[in-house]
């Protein structure tokens, strides 16, 4: 039976309302605007019918899918005449030299298919064993900066070199005729042949007796105080050579000699030699400084002092030594600091003639006291060598100040600026710039239209150092050659060629160097061609050093010193300011280098910013944010010194003296929107430049205007004001925790005498785990407790491993940039670093010590919660450890077991392999890694807009720096340290070709290569004679987080501090 039930669609249906009935006949309830639609006139005029539309759609889908399968036709263009020493696919190395007015290094340049792609130290032949720092490693990237000047120009209009030559020669002639002056302003020229060329130009202008032209040199960061003091003390207006490797006691008063002070690349190498606990002796290092510098963080004893006390410290040390050996004291009351210097003084007195006192101040008086102290200690002729001075930093502060007034008086008609950027880095840059407007013909030999270049009439772009010939004499008796590793990329000409030409010499600079060398090298040394070729091959030439002698101190030199030091210490205000340089940016020349901007500062771990460092106590007192992180921005504060105001974020740094502020130089480049390179400017969250008033906002603020003028430039200000603005500013740092919380499984340290006198169990005990056995709790070595079977790499085949010596690691971060360069590590910019998405394969963890330990907590009867809370607070003057951390290549790796697609596996050679093309980006591995060294590619760094201003791989020129042997990773994959597997493979291939086992040391990772102190060693752990095997078996060796049972192939050497009891213990 059928159903008779009736369903109504609603009450309207039940009652059959008229509206319902009307609507019932319509398909749609709502009014359809059919009329409107059809009455649209444009509809008829449309030429695309529905069927056409479908046809196009179908065709384009088919075409797109077909095109996806199409092979792109790739062209291969071989050489027509292949140079004999260039083999496509193989690297060619050239010995060269780096000098930029700040750093000198003997380097090796790796070129592939004619493109320089990597720089490393020339450790075999180079001066100072080829020590390099981060700035030098990164210099290869600056070659490919797409914002370099590409042609000569006058007032912004392109001109030819011939026109430039004739214009400038006419200008010089007319200046001479009108009795006006011609000035050449440069940084310290360390090239003897360039000096000859400059002299030639000066002579050709001046003729017999006129003084129309002169050459003035200055340094962005001046050391004039040292040479001025040496002039007074010994009658030698030079800076001596220091031998840190001969000093058993090193006392540094605010000199950052490992990072920036004088020839720091060389000093770092020397320092590394004497900081080895297994050496014959280990140097002890005392540091007195205001801001925690990288050097200070390595000191055995470090005292935080106010800048105004630097003089007092120097005098206190001097007076104590003087009284100990019965010499005359300096009449200054040092009672406020006497206690601080006692340890340093006793070490110095114990090591007379084998010690070194240095000061980082540019104040002549302090340098005079330091000189006298070293004379009393008999250090001249031993650790200090004035007979073989260094040829860097010969700038004369007084002459620059005279030049600026001459320019403002309208006396200078022609100004040629070479190798310096005075409009930025002079303390009185504003005066210089006003003066520059009065100079009729201003010429700039620079790489960029930077602060100076954008203000001069002529821009005659110089070659990059990798495109140019040069000779250098960084210290007397030592010569180095720089050779081009690539033809000039643009229409540039080496500055020296212009100088030669204007001086009436038509030789090319290369020929001129050869001629000069031929003239000066004594004939009895042999055939010049042989000497030249050898020097070129090795990059250096030694002409023999003078014998170092003891110096006689002129007693009159100390007149007035006491008064000057007293004056400084009494003039101190509430806040004192120290201007320092950072390891990455230095004096600011490389502010456009993204590798360096992204390099975390060794101490603060801040990237991409300049900031005001203050002590923790001061920050708390001011109410500034102390804890900084992704969601915790820094407080902005305004620092005002002599009417100059700088507004910067505040970063609290343990170890800083209360009442002081530190500001780094070298930031705030390109404030007027000059084209100095994309990475010099701040980027917003979208990755594009932050534009303020039509100009991109530079990274940080320029602190050079705060530099004090006077007899010498002064990098201390004794009276300043500091106040919070109430605003906040996000800051990007790579490490937010401060301490190691008393856990010894990551970091181990001991002192030299404990190490020398005790068993391994005392300073480096084996980790054990508690396990149940036969109903009892027993302690077993970690290795015996394991989920997995023993890995077969032990003893069989190769087993690549690394050993990192924490005693000699100084935290310089040279390894970090080397890794960037070798492994195409992307640069991600500030915003991403802030979100903890930095891509560094190798990072340097920095740990501070805390006042609180488990023992103290027990004594004071503190609860656990309180104890751990206090442990997180670093001491006021903490001990610091730098710990390079990269993939540990664990034999029982946590990452390998959790990868669902086997994208990370273990090789039979002990490497933890990462296969990008298999990775699907689950990130389980990173989660499971106890060392947190895996880096996830969140974005397509080489194409995504957000990184266009920072990542070199996005720039059509800068991408030439990429290493063709290493793939550029794409979005969605995990990456990490591969232990430079490309180098391992190459090294094995070389060994197989030669038919011999891999020699120890033949394969080096980029980080090990770059380490100036040889803290990192790499090799085959299965090779019983290898260095790395010996280190792995040493008493100091431990594994990071050993109790986790990952069995890493990377060993660390317990940090040994040279503290307490006798030196030479």
């Amino acid at each position, binding site marked *: 039976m059928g159903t008779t039930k009736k369903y109504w669609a609603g009450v309207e249906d039940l009652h059959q309302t008229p509206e319902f009935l009307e609507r019932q006949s319509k398909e749609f309830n709502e009014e359809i605007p059919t009329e409107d639609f059809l009455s649209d006139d444009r509809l008829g005029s449309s030429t695309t019918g529905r069927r056409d539309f479908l046809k196009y759609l179908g065709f384009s889908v088919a075409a797109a899918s077909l095109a996806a*399968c199409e*092979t792109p*036709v*790739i*062209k*291969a*263009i*071989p*050489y*027509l*005449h*292949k140079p004999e020493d260039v*083999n*496509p*696919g*193989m690297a060619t190395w050239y010995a060269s030299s780096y000098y930029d007015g700040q750093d000198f290094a003997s380097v090796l340049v790796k070129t592939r298919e004619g493109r320089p792609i990597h720089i490393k130290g020339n450790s075999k032949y180079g001066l100072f064993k080829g020590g390099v720092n981060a700035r030098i490693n990164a210099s290869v990237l600056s070659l490919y900066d797409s914002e370099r000047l590409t042609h000569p120009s006058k007032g912004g209009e392109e001109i030819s070199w011939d026109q430039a030559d004739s214009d400038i020669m006419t200008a010089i002639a007319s200046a001479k005729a009108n009795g006006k002056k011609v000035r050449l302003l440069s940084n310290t020229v360390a090239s003897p042949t360039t000096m000859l060329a400059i002299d030639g130009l000066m002579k050709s202008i001046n003729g017999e007796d006129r003084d129309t032209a002169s050459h003035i040199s200055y340094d962005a960061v001046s050391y004039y105080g040292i040479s001025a003091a040496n002039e007074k003390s010994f009658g030698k207006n030079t800076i001596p050579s220091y031998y840190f490797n001969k000093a058993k006691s090193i006392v540094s008063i605010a000199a950052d000699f490992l990072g920036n002070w004088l020839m720091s690349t060389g000093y770092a190498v020397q320092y590394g030699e004497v900081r080895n606990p297994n050496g014959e002796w280990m140097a002890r290092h005392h540091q007195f400084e205001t801001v925690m510098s990288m050097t200070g963080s390595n000191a055995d004893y470090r005292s935080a002092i106010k800048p105004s006390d630097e003089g007092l410290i120097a005098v206190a040390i001097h007076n104590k030594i003087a009284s100990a050996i019965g010499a005359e004291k300096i009449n200054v009351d040092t009672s406020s600091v006497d206690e601080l210097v006692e340890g340093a003084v006793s070490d110095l007195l114990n090591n007379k003639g084998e010690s070194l006192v240095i000061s980082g101040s540019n104040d002549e008086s302090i340098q005079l006291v330091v000189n006298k102290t070293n004379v009393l200690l008999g250090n001249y002729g031993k650790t200090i060598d004035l007979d073989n001075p260094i040829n860097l930093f010969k700038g004369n502060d007084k002459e620059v100040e005279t030049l600026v007034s001459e320019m403002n008086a309208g006396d200078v008609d022609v100004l040629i600026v070479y190798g310096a950027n005075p409009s930025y880095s002079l303390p009185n840059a504003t005066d210089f710039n006003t003066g520059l407007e009065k100079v009729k013909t201003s010429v700039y030999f620079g790489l960029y239209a930077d602060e100076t270049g954008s203000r001069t009439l002529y821009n005659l772009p110089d070659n990059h150092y990798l495109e140019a010939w040069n000779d250098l004499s960084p210290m007397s008796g030592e010569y180095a050659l720089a050779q081009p590793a690539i033809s000039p990329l643009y229409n540039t000409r080496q500055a020296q060629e212009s100088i030669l030409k204007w001086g009436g010499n038509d030789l090319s600079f290369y020929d001129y160097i050869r001629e000069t060398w031929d003239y000066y090298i004594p004939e009895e040394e042999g055939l010049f061609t042989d000497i030249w070729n050898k020097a070129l091959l090795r990059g250096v030439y030694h002409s023999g050093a003078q014998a170092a002698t003891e110096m006689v101190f002129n007693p009159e030199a100390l007149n007035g010193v006491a008064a000057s030091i007293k004056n400084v210490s009494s003039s101190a205000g509430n806040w004192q300011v120290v201007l320092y340089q950072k390891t990455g940016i230095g004096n600011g020349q490389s502010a456009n280098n993204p590798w360096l901007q992204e390099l975390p500062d060794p101490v603060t771990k801040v990237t991409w910013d300049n900031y005001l460092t203050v002590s923790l106590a001061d920050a708390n007192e001011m109410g500034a944010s102390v804890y900084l992180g992704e969601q915790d921005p820094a407080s902005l504060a305004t620092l005002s010194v002599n009417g100059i105001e700088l507004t910067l974020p505040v970063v609290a740094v343990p170890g800083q003296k209360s009442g002081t502020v530190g500001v780094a130089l070298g930031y705030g480049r390109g404030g007027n929107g000059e084209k100095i390179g994309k990475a010099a400017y701040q980027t917003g969250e979208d990755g594009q430049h932050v534009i303020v008033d039509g100009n991109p906002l530079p990274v940080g603020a320029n602190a050079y205007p705060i530099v004090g003028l006077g007899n010498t430039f002064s990098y201390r200000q004794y009276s300043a004001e500091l106040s919070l603005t109430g605003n906040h500013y996000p800051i990007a740092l790579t490490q937010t925790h401060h301490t190691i919380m008393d856990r010894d499984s990551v970091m181990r340290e001991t002192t030299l005498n404990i190490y020398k006198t005790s068993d391994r169990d005392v300073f480096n005990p084996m980790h054990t785990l508690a396990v149940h056995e036969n109903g009892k709790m027993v302690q077993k070595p970690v290795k015996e407790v394991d989920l997995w079977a023993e890995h*077969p790499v*032990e*003893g*069989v*085949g190769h087993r690549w491993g690394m050993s990192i010596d924490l005693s000699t690691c100084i935290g310089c971060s040279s390894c970090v940039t080397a890794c960037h360069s070798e492994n195409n590590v992307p640069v991600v910019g500030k915003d991403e670093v802030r979100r903890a998405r930095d891509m560094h394969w190798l990072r340097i963890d920095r740990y501070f010590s805390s006042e609180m330990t488990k023992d103290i907590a027990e004594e004071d009867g503190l609860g656990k919660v309180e104890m751990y809370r206090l442990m997180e607070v670093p001491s006021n003057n903490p001990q610091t450890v730098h710990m390079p951390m990269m993939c540990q290549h664990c034999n029982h790796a946590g990452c390998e077991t959790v990868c669902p697609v086997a994208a990370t*596996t273990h*090789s*039979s*050679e002990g*490497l933890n*392999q*990462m*296969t*990008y*093309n*298999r990775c699907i980006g689950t990130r389980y591995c990173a989660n499971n890694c106890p060392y947190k060294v895996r880096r996830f590619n969140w974005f397509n760094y080489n194409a995504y807009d957000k990184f266009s201003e920072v990542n070199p791989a996005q720039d059509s020129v800068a991408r030439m720096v990429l290493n063709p*042997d*290493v*793939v*550029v990773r794409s979005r969605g994959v995990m990456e990490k340290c*591969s232990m430079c*597997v*490309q180098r391992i*493979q190459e090294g*094995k*291939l070389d*060994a*197989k*070709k*030669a*038919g*011999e*086992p*891999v020699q120890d040391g033949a394969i080096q990772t980029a980080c090990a290569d770059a380490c100036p102190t040889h803290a990192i060693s790499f090799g085959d752990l*299965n090779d019983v004679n290898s260095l790395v095997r010996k280190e792995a078996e040493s008493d100091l060796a431990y594994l990071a987080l050993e109790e986790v049972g990952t069995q890493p192939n990377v060993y660390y050497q317990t940090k040994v501090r040279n503290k307490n009891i006798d030196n030479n213990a």
Partner: protein
Amino acid sequence: MNTIRLINKPFFFLFTITLFFTVNASFAQPDGAKLFKANCAACHKPDKDLVGPALKGALERWEGNEEMLMLWVKNPQKALETGDQQVKKLYDEWSPKGGMMTPQSLNDEEIMAVFAYADAYAPPAPKVEQGGKITYVKQDDSWLWLAVLSVLLITAILVLRSVVNVLQNAIRIEKGEDLESAIPVGDSIGNWLSNNKVLTFFITLFIVIALFIKVWDEALAIGVYEGYKPVQPIEYSHEVHAGKLEIECVYCHSGALQSRTAMIPSANVCMNCHNAVSEGPLTGTEEIQKIYDALGWDGSAYTGETTPIEWVKVHNLPDHVYFSHQQHYVVGDVDCTECHGDMTKETVGKQNAKLTMAWCLECHNTMEIDINSSAYYDEVHNRLLEHGEEELKGYLEDGKITVRELGGFECSKCHY
């Protein structure tokens, strides 16, 4: 027989010592064949005249005048200047064909080794195709025939259908019934399908599976360019150079000896011979002229006006693959033909192999490593003996050590 039990350490020590001496001894002797291939093969053959005379019997011909022969090889110009009659005769006879011989930087011992090799040279037996090798079957054009056939069949079905209709109607006329209009083709197919459901199911299943297999195969072939042979700017012939003239592959592709890339030779390499040879057997002067144009060679001197030759790259590996010719050719001693096939029958370059990862691994899986070939492997071997008895057993089970067993299947051997 398990050999491991027979091996004890003293035995192996002795073995290693012996090996060391044999290796050393063989190192001391210059390898005539290698030297010949590297230095002489471009112009000479051991047993036939080429640009230069056959080297076989040279020692005999120069008996008593060996010193001059040495001088001639090392510095022909100097030898000619001595006025030696035999040298002059040789020069007069051969210089019109290939110009003056190039000086060779070989020492006496090496030169003797080359002549010894030439004297002992016996031409290789004609190659016989070996069984068991992977052969790549050329795809035939059978699909065309299939298409023609199916068109024919469908036509036949339609014709037959209308014939049946006509006949049925004829019957109806006979019987005096009404004429039925023909059922449309679509309907009749539909009727048939609904009447034969099981068959329809299987036919559908067959079609789906066949399509799936086809798509799968095609998808696997994406990015595989086996047989890729693009048109090149110069119609070069490997057949002439490598085939007829028997010039060694690495004479031109010298990168294989020292680099990851074998290299398309730079034009100056061509000029080693084409300096003198300006006309070829296939294209006359036309193609050779292109080299001269590129180099700016006017027949006697370089004008300095050069235009690079834009070859089309034939073998393209993805960025994430690192392949080294040096590793395979020099260290692994893999013959060029293993991957590149017989280029002596080709004109311009052609991709012979698939270049897929499976193809790589196929060889890594089976290729044996001669562990006695160098001291590098001796070290590996020693460590195995000392620490890896388990592994050693594994290696010796099949009596050979393959690339795979030394890590040839591990990711970061090729991907980094």
